[in-house]
């Protein structure tokens, strides 16, 4: 472990002063990534700032403007809260997939975002639900960044020195909207996605026309990506198996995977196709449960 100091401020103002100090200053939420990275010398720190005693970063609420997730809120809390409200199913599914229960109890969704692993499971669901990252920094001030613009590369975000993620805000989905997230791993649990796909569709119940489609991919590019061409192909068309197959083929075009120990590039592209098809079908099932597709 490198030699670092530790502070646990109780106000955001105090935290911002600490974060602006010279040297490597690391915010700590759940710690499940950063402590491991410090131990294995993959990241360094002169000062670790524990964010879990700052009330603004522990906010978890739902109001007319949407779901608000403070950056230090654990996956377990997000899972329980979103499962209760039932309107962000893809996010609930992804929060339940990260590591074990013991990890989910500590790891924060905000930390999963800031760690910026291309394979991060919560990111595709946040992207399809159009999350906005609200950031704050002593010199950067407050910024609202659409999450798709938040990532700069593997493990890299657009956050500047001294700037942190404060809050993720997800708008309330329109009625007749469903989402789903699936990832592929060779085991049943406790693994890193070979590929992951989040999908969201909003359908007009009368015409069965897709009003909005969002598809986001994990583990197949240096950052999480949206499959814009696949989204466009669905929007305005009647949702059926042919439309889903077409979208699945197009989603592959957004994938620029590498070959590594988890899978070959070709295999990952095939997974994107399969997982896109499956998540869209789950969305259809979920809309069907809302009695939309009763003939």
């Amino acid at each position, binding site marked *: 472990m490198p030699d*670092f100091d*530790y502070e646990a401020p109780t106000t955001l103002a105090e935290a911002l002063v600490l974060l602006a100090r010279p040297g490597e200053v690391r915010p700590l939420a759940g710690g499940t990534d950063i402590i491991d990275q410090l131990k294995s010398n993959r990241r360094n720190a002169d000062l670790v700032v*524990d964010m879990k005693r700052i009330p603004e970063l522990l906010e978890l609420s739902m109001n007319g403007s949407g779901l608000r997730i403070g950056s230090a809120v654990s996956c377990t809390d997000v899972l329980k809260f979103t499962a209760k409200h039932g309107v962000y199913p893809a996010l609930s599914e992804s929060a339940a997939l990260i590591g*074990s*229960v013991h990890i989910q109890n500590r790891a924060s969704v905000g930390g999963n975002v800031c760690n910026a692993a291309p394979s991060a499971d919560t990111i595709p669901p946040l992207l399809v639900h159009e999350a906005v990252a609200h950031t704050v920094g002593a010199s950067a001030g407050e910024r609202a960044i659409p999450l798709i613009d938040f990532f700069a590369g593997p493990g890299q975000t657009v956050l500047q020195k001294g700037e942190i993620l404060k809050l993720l805000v997800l708008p309330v989905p329109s009625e007749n909207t469903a989402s789903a997230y699936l990832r592929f791993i060779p085991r049943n*649990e406790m693994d890193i996605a070979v590929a992951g796909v989040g999908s969201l569709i909003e359908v007009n119940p009368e015409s069965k026309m897709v009003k909005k489609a969002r598809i986001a991919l994990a583990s197949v590019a240096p950052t999480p990506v949206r499959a814009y061409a696949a989204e466009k192909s669905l929007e305005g068309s009647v949702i059926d198996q042919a439309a889903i197959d077409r979208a699945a083929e197009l989603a592959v075009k957004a994938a620029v995977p590498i070959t590594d120990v988890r899978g070959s590039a070709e295999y990952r592209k095939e997974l994107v196709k399969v997982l896109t098809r499956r998540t869209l079908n789950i969305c259809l099932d979920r809309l069907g449960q809302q009695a939309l597709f009763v003939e």
Partner: protein
Amino acid sequence: MSKKQIKTTVNGVEHEILVDSTWTLLETLRDHLQLTGTKEGCSNGNCGACTVMIDGETCCSCLVLAAEIDGREVTTVEGLADHGHLTPVQDAFVDNSGLQCGFCTPGFMIAATALLNENPHPTEHEIRLKLAGNLCRCTGYDKIVRSVQDAAERLSKV
């Protein structure tokens, strides 16, 4: 490195400890409180040998800094039995031989206790899912799952 004075309750006993900012909860428990029931396995959150509860929620104590537990309550395997009386979870592991070498057992018992606190009647699938973060290198999973099922039954009769 800096020192931090923390107050924490471990297994019902209050402690004031001067910790280094770089100590993990795991090394604080084992090396400074002599609570060696909690084991170090992988040291990166994969194996669950170091599972303890903080305020009733399980975590991998290798991925928590000691300074983070200031004001929190920690439960380790030593805190389960009450004056030598084993809990139904512990009895069930003994009676079902839910262990081979025993190294993973403290983590499994903490994880199983937390699971049954939250869900007193889990299905076999739920047990396997919720204990996926605890690895048994002897691969004795079947008897561990039977032990948790038996513990659930014992607890429902208490």
